[in-house]
């Protein structure tokens, strides 16, 4: 799943623009950034979440966390983390 502080309507348009998505894009819009703050990935100066990725196992435990500064997460990196859970 992916998340931002955009409204669900912006995310709907974003999903359409991407040609459709197969995962939920969730909206931390109101109250803005509440969940991002709880997860420690809210940039209050910009009013935006920080690019980051977490992998959560089936039991609900966080197994991977990465904050991205400049680079983007890759599918290979995240799939490798999922493989480690098997």
């Amino acid at each position, binding site marked *: *799943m*992916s*998340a*931002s*502080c*955009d409204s*669900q309507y*912006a*995310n*709907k*348009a*974003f*999903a359409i*623009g991407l040609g459709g*998505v197969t995962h*939920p*894009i*969730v*909206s*931390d*819009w109101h109250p803005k950034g509440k*969940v*991002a*703050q*709880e*997860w*420690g*990935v809210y*940039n209050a100066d*910009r009013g*935006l*979440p*920080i*690019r*980051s*990725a*977490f*992998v*959560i*196992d*089936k*039991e*609900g*435990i*966080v*197994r*991977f*966390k990465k904050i991205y500064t400049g680079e983007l*997460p890759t599918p290979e990196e*995240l799939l490798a*983390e*999922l493989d480690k*859970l098997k």
Partner: protein
Amino acid sequence: MAVEVGQMAPDFTLPSHDGQKITLSQYRGKQAVVFAWYPAAFTAG
């Protein structure tokens, strides 16, 4: 406060782009979840 590896993921319920309410814990016992934050739609952010 920050979420760290090894801790229980804090639960939340947020609206999805297609109008569903998604609760993180709905996946518990079923599947692992990749949860990716991006700064803003349509931008290089």
